[in-house]
């Protein structure tokens, strides 16, 4: 059994606010295998973004453990073993596109030639090579996100965490970038954890969809998406595609708002978590 890239055991996260404690996540168990594309989907407040940040050690869990590549999440962050893409591109206006992609490499101390080489390679990967010398404010939103993706991959991490990266874009750009992401995923073989609001996007991109419910944030169902690879434009027309979408939608509806998950789902989740 290959070792899981990400292992989340019994994780809870409570925030203390001025109005008292808020439980963002409770009893999360999840294992993610190498090369998977796992989406986290759920209503607002279900903790999916928090879960992503727990994996990235951008916030610590209140209980439980998060392991990345066999080490504690903090160690993985210090070793720079993952790349992150946010909903906002967070590019530096005063740097060219190429220098933006080089940013993580600068921080990690790579020398000039190496940085330039890798940055170019990544820009070519996302097909923005000719914009290397442009500035972020000269690019469209979709292009800026592609630069952000190139930057996240610049140091060749095995794990990519994406927090609704295409949320701010229009539907058509979104679908195009979904295809691009699939291509990049195939070429790099990275494991991807992807947070989204969009059911079709989750189903289209993922090998597994993790459906979450809110108040408190829990995993309510995990859907295996057995659509053929590679995912293409045709994939969106398959019957199985729509069936999966319906499954996810129903899972979301069933666990809307308060209420514990179904007993059978709990067992399945536990089974998933342990088997990983």
């Amino acid at each position, binding site marked *: 059994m290959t070792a899981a890239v990400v292992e989340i055991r019994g994780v809870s996260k409570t925030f203390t606010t001025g109005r008292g404690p808020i439980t963002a996540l409770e009893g999360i168990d999840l294992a993610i295998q190498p090369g998977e594309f796992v989406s986290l989907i759920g209503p607002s407040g279900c903790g999916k973004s928090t879960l992503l940040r727990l994996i990235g050690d*951008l*916030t*610590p869990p209140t209980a439980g453990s998060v392991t990345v590549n066999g080490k504690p999440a903090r160690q993985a962050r*210090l070793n720079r073993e993952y790349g992150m893409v946010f909903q906002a591109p967070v590019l530096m206006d005063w740097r060219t596109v190429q220098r933006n992609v080089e940013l993580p490499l600068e921080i990690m101390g790579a020398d000039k030639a190496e940085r330039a080489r890798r940055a170019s390679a990544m820009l070519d990967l996302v097909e923005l090579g000719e914009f290397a010398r442009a500035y972020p404010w000269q690019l469209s939103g979709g292009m800026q996100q592609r630069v952000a993706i190139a930057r996240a991959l610049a140091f060749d991490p095995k794990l990519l965490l994406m927090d609704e990266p295409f949320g701010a874009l229009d539907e058509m750009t979104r679908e195009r970038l979904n295809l691009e992401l699939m291509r990049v995923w195939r070429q790099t073989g990275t494991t991807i954890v992807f947070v989204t609001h969009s059911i079709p996007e989750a189903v289209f991109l993922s090998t597994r969809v993790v459906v979450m419910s809110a108040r408190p944030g829990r995993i309510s169902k995990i859907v295996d998406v057995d659509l053929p690879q590679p995912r293409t434009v045709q994939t969106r027309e398959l019957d199985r595609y729509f069936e999966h979408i319906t499954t996810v939608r129903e899972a979301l509806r069933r666990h809307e708002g308060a209420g514990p998950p179904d007993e059978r789902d709990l067992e399945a989740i536990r089974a998933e978590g342990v088997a990983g």
Partner: protein
Amino acid sequence: MTSATTLARGASGSGREALAAVDNRPSRRTRALAMLALFGGVLVVWELAKWLGGDPWRIHTSLFGLPIDYEHFPPFKWRIATDLALPHVWRIVGTFFEPAQRNGPPLAEVLFGNAVFTFGEAFAGFVMGAALGLGLGIVFAQSRTAERAFVPYVVASQTVPIVAIAPLVVIFLPIGWLAVAVIAAYLTFFPVTMGALRGLRSADPRAVELMRSYAASRVEVLRKLSLPSAVPYLFASFRIAASASVVGAIIGELPSGIPYGLGSSILNFKQYYVSGPEKLWATIIAAAALGLVFVGLVRLAEALVRGGRGSLVR
């Protein structure tokens, strides 16, 4: 939550600091203590400078019945640390309670009376300047052409040294305190204009569109949307304007020859500096206090107007 073990670089994590900062902001008490420590530190440095390089210390007095005889000859000679240039802290405190003139009331009383007088001028100036500033702000918010044409002059007006114009204003307006108020207003209208302009424009453009869809008139949009949106910015500018009005009033008093007010006190004690440098320092403290009090009043007004929501715009 997390044990703050400072590991290698990056362990502290500014992102988490940003999150934690909301919760871990130092408490009121800690901040108050820190400010007290800062103030105390300044006093210590003050006296230390005098101890090292000031005039000889000769203290022969008694404190709570215990006699104190302390003589000290500082090793260095610094011009800035002499008793004339830098009076002892306790001398400055003490001078508040001593008469300002022979057989006169204590200095504190004199300064308080003068401060109230100056406050009156400053307040009048503040009201005039704020009214003018608000008016200009409304005009500029309505017309970009007017804005582009006149704002540079509004800005440039502040580069004209008012102390130069002050004598002219005083000659022009024979009523002493009114001239000073006008000078105070001159310093006040600028921050209020800029604050009003910014505030009136700050309304969400979509809210403006909404009002237009109701065929609301310009005046209604102003009343129901622009002005309420401008309130935080206005109050922020009022705070600046309040302290500016005090500065303006004091500066205005200087050439006016009015025998009242903190400005006249400054001139008076400057003239007789050699006989009592502490008095000038005391006057400066009084002026500083006046500025702080006025700004405090504005904050109070803001809290009342906004129902305790406090100031969003710092």
